[in-house]
């Protein structure tokens, strides 16, 4: 599995960035470049960590920067990190805002879709 592989898709209301493998400090720069290049801060963003096996503090910082970018752009951001998964644990211990977290992709997509 290629670590930190990133796929960005356009969805109603913004984008979904689907990450893969281990997201740690060895790959965060490449992941961030890819997401920033393919999305705009004024559109909604869902970061799907459903396939991520590990998230370290550098990965949490990356998510923090993405949240700031899109909230400042006036758009909604959601992080999909299923309960019981390793990324969810990392986000929790780092004190990530619970309102930004979703358990599954559909609820996150609904949250950014235009009403």
């Amino acid at each position, binding site marked *: 599995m290629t670590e930190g592989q990133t796929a960005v898709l356009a969805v109603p209301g913004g984008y979904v960035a689907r990450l893969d493998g281990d997201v740690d400090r060895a790959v965060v720069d490449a992941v961030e470049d890819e997401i920033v290049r393919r999305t705009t801060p004024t559109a909604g963003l869902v970061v799907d960590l459903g396939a991520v096996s590990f998230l*370290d503090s550098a990965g949490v910082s990356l998510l923090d920067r993405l949240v700031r970018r899109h909230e400042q752009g006036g758009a909604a951001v959601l992080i999909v990190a299923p309960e019981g998964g390793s990324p969810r644990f990392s986000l929790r211990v780092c004190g990530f805002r619970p309102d930004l977290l979703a358990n599954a992709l559909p609820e996150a997509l609904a949250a950014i879709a235009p009403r």
Partner: protein
Amino acid sequence: MTAEPARGASGPLEESAEELYENAPCGYLSTDPDGVIVKINRTLLDWLGYDRADLVGRRTYQSLLSVGGRIYYETHYGPLLRMQGEVREIALELLRRDGSRIPALVNSVARADAAGAIAGIRTMVFEASSRRTYERELLAAQRFAERSAQRLSVLHGLVSDFAAALTPEDVGEVLVRGVRQAVRAVGGAVWLLADDDATLVRVNHAGAAHHPLLLRAPLDADLPHAAAVRGNELIQLASVEAARRRFPGFAEILADIGRDRALFVPLAVGERAIGVVGLSFDDTGEVDDDDLPMLRTLGHQAGQALERAQLHAEAVVRRRQAEFFAALSRHLDEAPGLRQRADRLVARLVPEIARWARVEVLVDRRLTRLASASLPVADEASAASAASAASAASAASAASAEDAPDASAGAVPGQHVATALATGAPQVATTDVDGTGPAVEVALPLRASGRVTGVLVMGLDGSRDVRGRLGFLGELAESAGLALENGRLYDQERENAHTLQRGLLAGEPLHDPRVAVTTFYRAAGDGLEVGGDWYDAFPIGPHKVALVVGDVVGRGIRAASAMGQLRSAIRALAATGLNPAALLERLDRFVDRFDVGRVSTVVYGELDLTSGHLRFACAGHLPPLVLEPDGDRRFLWGGRSGALAAHAGIRSRAEDAVRLRPGSRLLLYTDGLVERRDAGLEEQMTRLAREAGRRRRAPLTAMLPDLVDALVEADQYDDVCLLCVRFGVEPRFERELPADVAQLKSLRDDFRSWLSAMPLTADERDALLLVCSEATANAIEHGYRACDDGVVSVRAEVVDRVLELTVRDRGSWRRPNPETDRGRGLELIRSLMDRVSIEPGDCATGLGDGATEPGTVVTMRRRLTWKAAA
């Protein structure tokens, strides 16, 4: 004097003196001392056309002379006569009555009286018309002979100069210099027919006009030099007026540079002109009709010299080109793949041929740049001008100016490239974007099997004739296109074989905490063809795994396919519950029956996950290596027999068994790992044991590539295939890894595997993984800020349900700063662990001499809940 003397009264031989005087074949004239005519004979009167009465007593002798003669009479003739009494053979001109002149030679004698004074003068006149004509002819002939001799010597001089001329330019130079001098022309120029036989190009000139029409003109142009070549005729324009009538355009140029006349001499080989020398004159020049044949001859001589020089130059150029092409194709052939060949091509072209070059090929109908190279911009000034030119242009051309300029600012960038692709014909565009002077960019289509597959773009010096070199450049593109196509085919074939091989090697991962398997495959350095090396690991029942590494003789698709068949056969035989020796015997029969993979070598082992028992058999294969957690290492030399179905090999198969301790690593490998050109097998196996032993604590997945790097040369001629098994769970987790964050994942994988043997909750497992990763990352990032070859040690152990994790670096000790990442990472660690201590790593170096190493030791403890289910 009153009457004419009678004639013929006596016989012809008895003429009277008077008769003789009057009708003598010369003129007689008597004057008084002042020159007044007193007597004159009939002969002279007839010559002059006067009657006697017109002259006698009325006219002086002097008055019958031309002006020049009269002056001569006053200054020389008269005084000499008075002093010497006579003058002889004076050449004078007498005036006839009608004003015309009679050239004459005269003798005069003064007649003295008794007192010695001049009493009269007697003059005899000889008519000298014919003599003067002759003399004039004589003089002219002499002058002609002199000019001829001069022309001949010019001609000889030029001909020997021609003989020494090696290149057409040399001939041109000789012509311009020599002919201009010979005929005192002010300007001279030589044009030659270009290779296309339709263009005249000026190769040499001196004192000639600088007009674009004169630099290069089509052969059918309405210009005198073109006309001279077309008709192989000498063209003389005797005046600007004459020029205006025939070549109005040229007349203006001639007048502009203040010349009166011009002459164009074709340089001919046989009946065909291959060039022309042009001469222009002001009024000091001297060329007359007599010179024309000489010039014509010179034109022939020059034509021959040119042809010879051209042949010579062509031979030299051909030889150089042939040498260049041979060297180029040798150079390209050394690299097998498309991209490597493209890189080599541009590196070869710059600067030898071009200022910049790039290769672009069509991939899915889009041009993709494969390689580019360019000369560095000469100095800062030109760099600045190039930069400003680029910034003034569009963003697109600014981007391209970084490596090579695309096209002239005026033209549509890349238009010539697009045209070359569309038409398949070379295209030329002028440019000076790189700030080093005028240049042309040539886009040459690259072909393969009749299709245009890409384009070779080269920036050439603009001051040289590019169109004349298109033939050579076309050949260059031809051979480059061929080499690149072969490179592409090679890539494709290799990709196919590798895809097949990858498909055959891919196996489902083992999900069992009691064992971890990692594999590594590296193709031979030349990458030419896939080899027949393979590895395999698969479960046999719930508590056993089979481990295989083998090597099929040969390379390429056939070897890959044989490898696939052996691999499947082993899996099928293993499922029947045979022990390793029996399995190899069956495999021999399989090879014999289907004749695939004969003399392949293979090592087959079965590892019991509950006990660590390994039963194995080696068919001609190198012995497996066991690495114990405490550092012991040994090759497994037992269970050996010959290669598969080898006629000379030992057919009775042997097997052996060993017991692996938890945490041991077992390494299976192919001979590519230990065969080296510069070292013996035994020596290399010793090295393998040493290098592998040093890495026994490396994170498992990172271990194999690192080991191959340490043992195998980059240009290794054989494939390398490795399989490493970590058996069981070591009681104490110990890893050492280089200070590289890319190794963190491998460390976590091992740690996760180690933790998986313990009855932990998901949160505990996640917490310990996160802590291990963060603490190690801190050590990497902060312990080795100044150097990057450091090693980080990670240790974990459970004592009385307390997990103690220690991360040690040997970087310079720094007191933790809560404001930095390390501080924040530490906060996270502290929130997840019960106790955290950070100390300077004054630990023993292990050298036993009491020395200590600097560094930081972070020790973290957490009490585990220890699920009851365990």
